């Protein structure tokens, strides 16, 4: 246990004010990569994403609670879990920031964790936006569509 970590109440990212980003940025969610890793099984893709979306808010809340009580050992584990589950669904942005938090907790740099936690919330919001866009049909302002990713996934399943 380390000293208590003060959480700065400045999590605009979690409330939807995150910097705008392209919803199909593969750093946010690499649909094609996930589909490849699921051997093109789109039902499985959808199932693991839904499960991830159920889990992650709880994990974020737990991370936040641990920051408040200053339990760095458990913080390390919580950040590691988020890193792992984010990597499982190919959400590289979340994975990267969770890894940074894990590194900070291991290094004992607790004062830098709240700012990183805000980044993590921003990444989560970007992910949520991306998924919402995918559910709407994938048409973005730039005319992109997520459909090719899924078509490619279907093709790869047929190829098996």
């Amino acid at each position, binding site marked *: 246990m380390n000293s208590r970590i003060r959480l700065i109440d400045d999590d605009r990212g979690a409330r939807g004010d995150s910097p705008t980003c392209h919803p199909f940025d593969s750093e946010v969610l690499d649909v094609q990569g996930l589909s490849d890793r699921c051997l093109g099984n789109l039902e*499985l893709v959808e199932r693991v994403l839904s*499960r991830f979306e159920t889990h992650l808010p709880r994990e974020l809340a737990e991370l936040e609670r641990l920051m408040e009580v200053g339990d760095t050992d458990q913080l390390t584990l919580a950040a590691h*879990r988020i890193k792992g589950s984010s990597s499982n669904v190919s959400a590289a942005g979340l994975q990267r920031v969770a890894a940074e938090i894990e590194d900070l907790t291991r290094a004992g740099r607790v004062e830098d964790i709240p700012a990183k936690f805000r980044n993590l919330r921003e990444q989560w919001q970007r992910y949520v936006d991306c998924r919402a866009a995918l559910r709407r049909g994938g048409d973005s302002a730039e005319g992109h569509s997520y459909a090719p990713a899924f078509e490619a996934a279907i093709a790869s399943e047929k190829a*098996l």
Partner: protein
Amino acid sequence: MKILIADDDDIAVEVLAYTLSKFGYEVAVARNGREALDLVRSGQFRIVVSDWEMPEMTGVELCREIRRRSASGYVYFILLTSRQGTQSVVDGLSSGADDFVSKPFQPQELLVRIRAGERILALESRELVIFSLAKLAESRDPDTGTHLERMREYCRVIAHHLAQQAKFRDQVDGNYVRLIYMTSPLHDIGKVGIPDRILLKTGPLSREEFEIMKQHTVIGARTLDAAVSAHPEAEFLGMAREIARCHHEKFDGSGYPGGLVGEEIPLCGRIVALADVYDALTTKRVYKPAFSHEQAVAIVEEGRGKHFDPDIVDAFWDNEDEFVAIHEQLAEQEDQESQALRVRQAELVLQ
């Protein structure tokens, strides 16, 4: 092939289980290291794919426990983790893990790594088959107990020592040590061709009977000749044949079947000759009591340059503590097995 997945992350488990099933493997899941250890101990799983961070027991701790306790064959262990960096790889592999795969895993990469594991396990299966054949041949002679187990350990110790000597460095390497460990138990396989009235005779053999007994070296080599012809690329068969033929040759040329002298005798034959005699001396047989290690050492020394290659005797001298340790360890195992056998027999009588 059944694969055990050990991971507490539902998403990782779901993707991994689907992928491995799709590749044709039967999959079981443990949610923590302790549960995984229980399943591994059931003996059903030869391959484990484990997460590193898990509740109750981490993947690294799980691997260490498996290595510490493993008694029913080798378990191929793949650590799956999002940890990065050389130190993590070193830590993971130091625990006894065979391979290390980064999360998120790529299915094709995981598949080739599992197939590499299957090849390793197949090699072990080959060794088991060889050892089973040797045990089968030995089973007609009820007097030898764990002779084969001790023999191969003695051979390993000598070969390992020679590998570090300049004179033998070109001939003896890690592969040679592994091969002699694997094939030395086949030295007496030709005894399957010796009639029971001679093989199982408790009194001294007549000259004629001894001539027949000596034929076990030729019968064994001839049997293995056929295998060598069919698979000339299989090094272990070649070594097994040399051992079967030459383990009764003596350094001064007074041995059989060929009366070979000195380095005409293949090195593996010279190694097995000493290991075989030392074991025969230090264990009880129907025709003699067990000699002490000191008595056996004196007899081996007496045979330096006559029965035994002086270099092999030197290797024996330099490692005699290890010989004693092997003898004691396997004697203890033999006692336990005999006791377990007696208990089983008693239970059968009572049923």
